[in-house]
């Protein structure tokens, strides 16, 4: 199986270890991984601002880079959600539709497509908490949203439960938004920072040492707040835990 790897800009520049772990993890499952070199951004930040003109160019480039692949996998729920659900600043040609339909978030790809049942190489002897992003939960349905009265499921939790040694702690508000929200985190900084701080206190109340997420952007915001407040929490992408590093 051949997979095109989509590494969002901020993972490329700030959290390359999350990208490396994703690459290695997919290879461990026998997948052939290709990284199209000319990729930049999926256009989400501009689209979320309502700025269609500027998101169109980024979307077009994304399609150029990723067309023709059966699977496009990215370790970032909100970017994948954008491609799949809101990628409409450009005409919906066959190539665009094909790219949109074939783009997967890492957790759902492991869970739904590869159907993995073990990570024999992974050990993680810590108390940790899971932060699924809102885009992943309510957009991609990788977990049952707490508002919705259907049966419980949580794909990232299920994968993490296969990791030896890992103890997942439950939170008071398990899927409350952390306040990142893309540009919201700067244009609405007071509310954003308060939401992030409340989230961090929830982790601390339950004695989590690590925060694990399939979406590094939420963690970037939370990590910044925790560091500023002098709190010693560690934030890490789920790919790194499932792959057993790099840390």
């Amino acid at each position, binding site marked *: 199986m051949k997979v095109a790897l989509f590494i969002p800009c901020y993972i490329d520049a700030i959290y390359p270890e999350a990208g490396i772990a994703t690459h290695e993890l997919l290879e461990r499952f026998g997948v052939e991984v290709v990284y199209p*070199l000319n990729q930049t*951004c999926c256009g989400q930040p501009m689209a979320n601002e309502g700025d269609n003109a*500027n998101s169109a160019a980024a979307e077009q480039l994304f399609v150029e880079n990723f067309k023709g692949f059966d699977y496009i996998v990215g370790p970032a729920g909100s970017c994948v959600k954008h491609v799949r659900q809101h990628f409409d600043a450009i005409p919906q040609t066959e190539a665009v539709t094909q790219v949109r339909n074939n783009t997967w978030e890492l957790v759902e790809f492991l869970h739904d497509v590869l159907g993995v049942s073990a990570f024999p190489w992974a050990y993680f002897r810590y108390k940790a908490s899971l932060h699924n992003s809102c885009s992943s939960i*309510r957009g991609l349905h990788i977990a049952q949203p707490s508002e919705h009265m*259907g049966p419980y499921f949580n794909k990232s939790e299920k994968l993490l439960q296969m990791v030896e040694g890992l103890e997942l702690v439950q939170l008071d508000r398990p899927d409350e938004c952390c306040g990142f929200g*893309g540009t919201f985190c700067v*244009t*609405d900084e007071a509310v954003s*920072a308060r939401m992030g701080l409340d989230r961090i206190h929830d982790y601390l109340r339950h004695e989590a040492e690590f925060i694990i997420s399939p979406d590094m952007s939420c963690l970037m915001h939370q990590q910044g*707040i925790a560091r500023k407040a002098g709190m010693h929490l560690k934030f890490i992408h789920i790919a790194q835990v499932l792959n057993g590093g790099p840390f």
Partner: protein
Amino acid sequence: MSSKRVDVAANAAAFIDKDDIHEPFHDEHLWAARMKRDAAARAVPEWEALRDLASQIKAHTLTHLDHYLELFEANATRHGAKVYWARDAAEHNQHVLDILSSRNINSVIKSKSMLQEECNMTAFLETRGITVTESDLGERIQQLDNQPPSHIVMPAIHKTAGDIAEIFAKAIGTDPNNADPQYLTEAMRQDARQRFLKAGAGMTGANFAIAETGSFVVCTNEGNADIGASVPPVHIASIGIEKLLPKVQDLGIFIRLLSRSALGTLATQYTSHFTGPRNGGELHIILTDNGRSKRLGLPDFWHSLKCIRCGACMNTCPVYRRSGGLAYGATYSGPIGIILDPTFDESKYSELPYHSTLCGSCTEVCPVKIDISDQILKWRKVMAEKKYLPISRRLAFGAAGKVFEHPGLFHGAETAASAAMKITPHFLLYNRSLNPWGRHRELPHFAKQTFREWYLQYKQPDKEPSPKEL
């Protein structure tokens, strides 16, 4: 109405920075309501099916609204009510004034109605010499403090008992140091009772209006609407035209959803049905449009007319809980406010759609399945297209767009360490300056090697990038 742009982010910041009490109190109380809602909803196995059904009934009614309105009018008239039509707030208020003045009524007792808030009715009547007294406790607190409701179900939820003690001390002479809820409620009861008994007319809104019977339903927890409707001889009901339901049998679905969604209770304490005037009394019904038919014509936004004003989207909204409702500077706050307010004034409320993380919780919680979060995003597109955004915000995005459009520019900016620090706020944070990020957060550290460099080094050692690819 002034159309100065509401700076909702600044207002929210002021609420948070006010002290260490109000915002945490607001957040916790509304979150508790959300938790009670979850428990109540979970106890109904067919909850999700009920939401679907309610949404479909509303869609059907709204797409046949002319028919149901006429049916309602005919049936209400048949039962002896007098029905008026109001195109906008001015017509609504004029009808009320005409009814009152022709009967020499100068004192009114009213039960909370968001439509009357929309119409700014109280101020209109008071400047014309008519005393208006709110009968809902929370709303009365807001009235005494000269503030609009901050939440559609719990209008004074942003106030602590201490705040209320202070207001009551000034307004009705209670002990400013006694913030015991029992004491304050009783004091208010004694004060308001006299006004209730003397009022010449009672005003209510309506939660639902039934076309088949011409009756309407008012849901309250204090029974205050019932005093207004049964003590004074004249009852005036302000009903938004979107409140219609076709049949009595539809009601059960909505009654089951409303109170569970709002406060997590099985039903409101009082669910009163009014069909025609009571013996010897008068019933006046003002069917009011005030922008609703215009909204019905907006393909992206008409679903917002399904709203039953339960407030669940506000209770669940993590942004609303921190901001307080007054920050929105509008009749409606929270997620439902964000999608309704711009239909009243696009320019004034152009910042509201940005006051959301698009987390989607409102959409999942809404009992009538309004796609609130998607509508918020669609409103952003309207604001951007119509150039309501501040120029600084638009320029930052132009720059970000250029960087993302050109891989060479992007990777160049990214790999040059000093340039990267300079461009960070633009391509990562899309912001005017580093300050807003840095005030509450440490900046992320740039990695020594990007993922792309790692890939080229370890995964494609024999394939050096051609200049074209850079």
